[in-house]
């Protein structure tokens, strides 16, 4: 439920109950006032009758009263308190019964006591109450309508900055270098919200940047010790007194060092790609690059006896040659490494996609995690960063990359 609906619901419930309660109180108040007015009129009438009797020593005739119905009835009671009561008024002109108000009192003449009852019509006051009630009702409806319309249009405008902020938060990307652009607006609360969001996003970005710097610095710091290890090993193997058995150990250290240095370079490269630091953009003939790579990897390919099938259409792309080099290196490396002896490698380049298909283990790899960092087959000698780099390079150029396992071929497809 939208905030404005919640707000409307509350407003409607509150206004209806307040207006209803008001109407009830109003009704009783008006009725009370009207009744008091009638009673005052009746008192006046009965006083007039009493005065008339005192003056003329006889009962007044019916004609002397306007539209009031006055009835005199002989009574034996000596004392009769003046009482007001609701009754039925018989309109003599219109010949119909209406609601009426009556007063009864005692009038003393020489021939005896009379009970006098004066009845007047309550029609007018009832009518008044009806009018007042209808006006109140109309007002109530108007008020509700106005409230709803106000909520609908003004509230929408009022909340616009909130939705702007929400949109900005949704579009927030921690690796973007752009700052949060939030406009100043008239509502303090929203300004505060914007301020808080800005501060938070800046902090998150700083943390992210720090993390990246940390990765970069850590990788850089590792390069010098790696260089020390390598140069020590290079010096160590010059020693002719070393026992031949030790060469195996040294060979393993070489392998581990070379792997470590490759991981390091890959991490640095990832940071560089994420920071968009590679900008040597030029036109690259992709088909030509692929053919060159096939030549470069020829030794690896022929060692494994892999059959390479190329179907390359000419395709020029506006990219960094360095990144494309790495992309192809990693794809080739990957498809050759995980290939079986005498397997096949099919490379297909068309205007809108590049496909690498290779034979390999008869099992599909996990499509979800295959492009994540340090995800690799347990027998893999690689760094586990190759495909993460491929994916990152693709996302730099807004290409889509898919992995699929069909017809016992592992397929990597890049959609330009």
């Amino acid at each position, binding site marked *: 439920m939208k905030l404005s609906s919640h707000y409307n619901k509350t407003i409607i419930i509150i206004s209806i109950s307040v207006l209803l309660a008001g109407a009830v109180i109003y009704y009783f108040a008006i009725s009370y006032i009207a009744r008091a007015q009638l009673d005052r009129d009746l008192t006046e009438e009965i006083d007039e009758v009493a005065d008339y009797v005192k003056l003329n020593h006889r009962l007044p005739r019916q004609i002397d009263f306007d539209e009031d119905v006055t009835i005199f009835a002989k009574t034996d009671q000596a004392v009769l308190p003046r009482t007001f009561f609701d009754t039925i008024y018989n309109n003599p002109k219109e010949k119909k019964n209406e609601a009426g108000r009556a007063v009864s009192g005692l009038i003393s003449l020489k021939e005896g006591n009379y009970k006098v009852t004066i009845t007047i019509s309550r029609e007018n006051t009832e009518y008044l109450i009806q009018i007042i009630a209808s006006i109140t009702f109309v007002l109530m409806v108007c008020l509700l309508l106005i409230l709803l319309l106000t909520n609908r249009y003004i509230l929408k405008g009022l909340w616009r900055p909130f939705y702007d902020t929400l949109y900005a938060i949704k579009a927030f990307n921690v690796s973007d270098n752009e700052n949060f652009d939030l406009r100043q607006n008239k509502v303090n609360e929203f300004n505060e919200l914007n301020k808080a969001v800005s501060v938070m996003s800046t902090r998150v970005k700083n943390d992210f940047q720090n993390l990246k710097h940390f990765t970069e610095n850590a990788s850089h710091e590792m*390069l010098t010790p790696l*260089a020390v290890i390598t*140069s020590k090993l*290079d010096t160590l*193997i*010059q020693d002719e007194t070393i026992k031949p058995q030790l060469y195996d150990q040294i060979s393993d250290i*070489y392998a581990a060092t070379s792997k470590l240095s490759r991981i390091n370079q890959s991490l640095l490269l990832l940071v560089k790609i994420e920071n968009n630091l590679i900008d040597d953009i030029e036109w690259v003939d992709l088909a030509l690059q692929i053919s060159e790579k096939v030549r470069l990897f020829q030794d690896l390919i022929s060692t494994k006896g892999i059959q390479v099938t190329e179907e390359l259409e000419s395709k020029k792309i506006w990219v960094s040659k360095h990144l494309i080099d790495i992309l192809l290196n990693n794809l080739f*490396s990957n498809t050759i490494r995980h290939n079986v002896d005498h397997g096949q490698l099919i490379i297909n380049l068309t205007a809108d996609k590049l496909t690498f298909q290779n034979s390999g283990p008869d099992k599909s790899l996990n499509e979800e995690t295959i492009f994540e960092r340090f995800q690799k087959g347990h027998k893999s000698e690689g760094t586990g960063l190759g495909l993460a780099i491929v994916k990152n390079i693709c996302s730099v150029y807004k290409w889509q990359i898919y992995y699929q396992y069909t017809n016992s071929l592992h397929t990597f497809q890049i959609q330009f």
Partner: protein
Amino acid sequence: MKLLVIEDEQGIRENIVNYFNEDGNICESCDCLSAAIDKLAVFDYDCVLLDIGLPDGEGFAVLEYLQKQIKNEAVLIISARNSLNDKLKGLNVGADDYLTKPFHLAELKARVVAIYRRRTFNSNNNLVFNEISINLPGRTVQVNQIQITLTRKEYDMLLYFIANKGKVISKNAIAEHLWGDEMDMHNNFDFIYTHIKNLRKKLLDANSNDYLKSIYGIGYKFMAE
């Protein structure tokens, strides 16, 4: 060849000096910018090996100093920073080559020798090692005055071995030299063996001495004698 190594990491510095000194070269070293400038002000060198990240400043200052003093030292930058910008900056300010850490000593030696050769030989000069004569600009090889045909890899390998003659070179170093360090060789060096076998066979067929010696599966040595 007279060399100056400017490198603050003691382990690397000592190894470089030892590796280069054994070959009849004179190799001096220092560990900071100021000492380097002091040495360069007094002595002339054939080649300077320069680390960029020095404790008292960036190594680029040495390049600027050399340029200002119109000194003719060849400079090879060795840096832990594998950044294209640094590379371009270094090469723009007058460096001859750029090598990223970690590197193999054999690779460093090969690069230094190549720079030195470029600077000192005339274009028609040959590199002669005993009965082997290599025409550098033409990329042709003669053994006992008989031309032999080598593939590109075999030729590069021969130059690499001659530059590092008398040294044991690990397979890793050879693979990185021939295929570049960006290519993951999967620690599969069988194909190096194939190339070396072919090179050795071609040299022996031309009645050359058997210089190439395999060292217990870890690498190869090009015998100096």
